[in-house]
């Protein structure tokens, strides 16, 4: 019983970080209908920039975060201005290729620019594992989850409460109508990608805290696809629910199934759920039913 509670709590905490990554994916999909296959590379670049600020510039974690946010927003602005602006209303495949090309470019430049700099980010303070109601809880995951939760709340306020958020929701709803009421699409696409940049910095850093670092942050991108399909590609609440669900699922299968069938099943379990969802409810739990029934 205690083991079960531990697994569920652990899954929830990891799910909070997944939620940040998945939100970075969904804001882009909602605004422009683009699938970002390079979401893992964005996370990688974000965390590497923080690490570069900490180790290379010696400005500390706070300074590193600011440095990385500025850097990633600059990358996002350059990307939207130089590339995306020319590709307005291009086909799905072209837009996918663009994100793949950008991913390759990011990987190559990160390896070149940050060569020799350590990729890990030290946790600000070493924490002892806590025990809450008899359940052991990893303290760094708890802190990471709290930060991720705060970001999710801030983000949902941004979408619900601010004028820019309203405009972004209007674009997600109907691009043409949004344009006709005077919303500048290109400006808001740029804002969306800037948001992706900031989210990448946060999620990449939190993930480095939890996993201890640097290497393999790209793989975080692969977690996104089951989450967004289960939750529904165009739904923010669905994405958050999906992220927690996949986090718990992974934790439970890692705890109970992996010892029996051998490692790795916890990762494939989420993809089994992805395919099952597509068969039963292709638009996800909370998505809009745009797919025609056949």
């Amino acid at each position, binding site marked *: 019983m205690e083991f079960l509670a531990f697994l569920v709590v652990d899954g929830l905490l990891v799910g909070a970080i997944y939620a940040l990554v998945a939100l970075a994916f969904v804001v882009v999909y909602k605004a422009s209908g683009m699938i970002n296959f390079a979401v893992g590379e964005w996370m990688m670049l974000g965390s590497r920039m923080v690490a570069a600020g900490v180790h290379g510039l010696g400005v500390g974690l706070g300074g590193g975060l600011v440095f990385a946010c500025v850097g990633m927003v600059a990358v996002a602005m350059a990307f939207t201005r130089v590339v995306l602006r020319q590709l307005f209303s291009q086909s799905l495949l072209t837009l996918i290729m663009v994100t793949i090309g950008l991913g390759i470019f990011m990987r190559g430049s990160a390896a070149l620019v940050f060569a020799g700099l350590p990729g890990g980010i030290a946790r600000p303070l070493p924490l002892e594992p806590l025990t809450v109601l008899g359940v052991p809880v990893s303290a760094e995951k708890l802190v990471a989850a709290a930060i991720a939760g705060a970001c999710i709340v801030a983000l949902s306020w941004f979408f619900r409460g601010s004028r820019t958020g309203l405009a972004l929701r209007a674009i997600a709803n109907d691009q043409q109508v949004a344009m006709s009421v005077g919303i500048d699409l290109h400006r808001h696409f740029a804002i969306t990608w800037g948001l992706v940049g900031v989210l990448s910095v946060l999620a990449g850093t939190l993930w480095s805290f939890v996993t201890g670092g640097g290497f393999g942050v790209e793989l975080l991108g692969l977690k996104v696809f089951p989450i967004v399909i289960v939750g529904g590609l165009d739904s923010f609440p669905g994405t958050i629910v999906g992220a927690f669900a996949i986090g718990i699922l992974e934790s439970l299968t890692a705890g109970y199934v992996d010892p029996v069938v*051998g490692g790795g099943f916890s*990762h494939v379990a989420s993809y089994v759920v992805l395919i099952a969802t597509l068969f039963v409810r292709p638009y996800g739990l909370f998505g809009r039913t745009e797919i025609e029934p056949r």
Partner: protein
Amino acid sequence: MLSDHAVSILIFAGIDIIMALSFFLPASAGQLSAGQGGFMALGAYTSAYLSVHHQAPFPLALAAGGLVGGLVGLVVGFPALRLRGLYLVLVTFGFGEMVRVLFLSAPAFGGPAGFAGIPPTTTIWYVLGLVLVLVYFFARLSRSRMGRAFAALRDDEAAAEAMGVNSTYVKLAAFAAGGVIAGLGGGLYAHYTLFIDPEAFGVGRSLFVMLYAVFGGLASFWGSVVGAAILSVLPELLRWVKDWREILYGLLVLLMMLVRPQGLLDPTLLARISARGERAAARG
């Protein structure tokens, strides 16, 4: 004759061409697959397993790999009947990832340590032979009833059905045939590298296969041939730039999508080439 290094570049380029064609086939019927690496893995592991544990002759092992790829392609084709566009890309992507993890957790196939000791039976002639057979097949296909059904389905599904195209049958056929080609490619790959591990067929492989075909242009199968040939030889030519290689590669893809999103060989260029060919034929 050619040096060993040149032969190896040619063999890998040939396998990339085969893989790009395996993506092109369903794509020519409007079915985008982001999981060709999964079919390749199935073909590679099947044929390698038969060669190593059952001493199967190479052509037989290769054919078995293609068969398994095709059968699984048929299974993956079913969700394709309900999904389109983006969702299909995601489900095939998920399929590729599933296959990778399944092989990762299958001790009979070596798991993460990989599968070694595969006999070195792939020669340049097998690869070249299969590429030529496929070129002939695709050249015939585009003028056949099935090829026209593919094109009709890609352009407008409702109109194609109204004209009597059985869309269920055609889509499943497209996926299965793509699976066969990718399975064959995987078999050739396994018997050339002599060692395979699941990471060789992961997301990166699937997305690169897609990239080859789109870079060359989806208007004709020649696009896949040309795109794969260029993009797989290019890293060799870019060897001297060392660390800049990946950056240049990424920039090239971005530039291509900006300048020529329809790919290298678009219908205009194809028409010009074939018109020139016909004039030459008329003269000669």
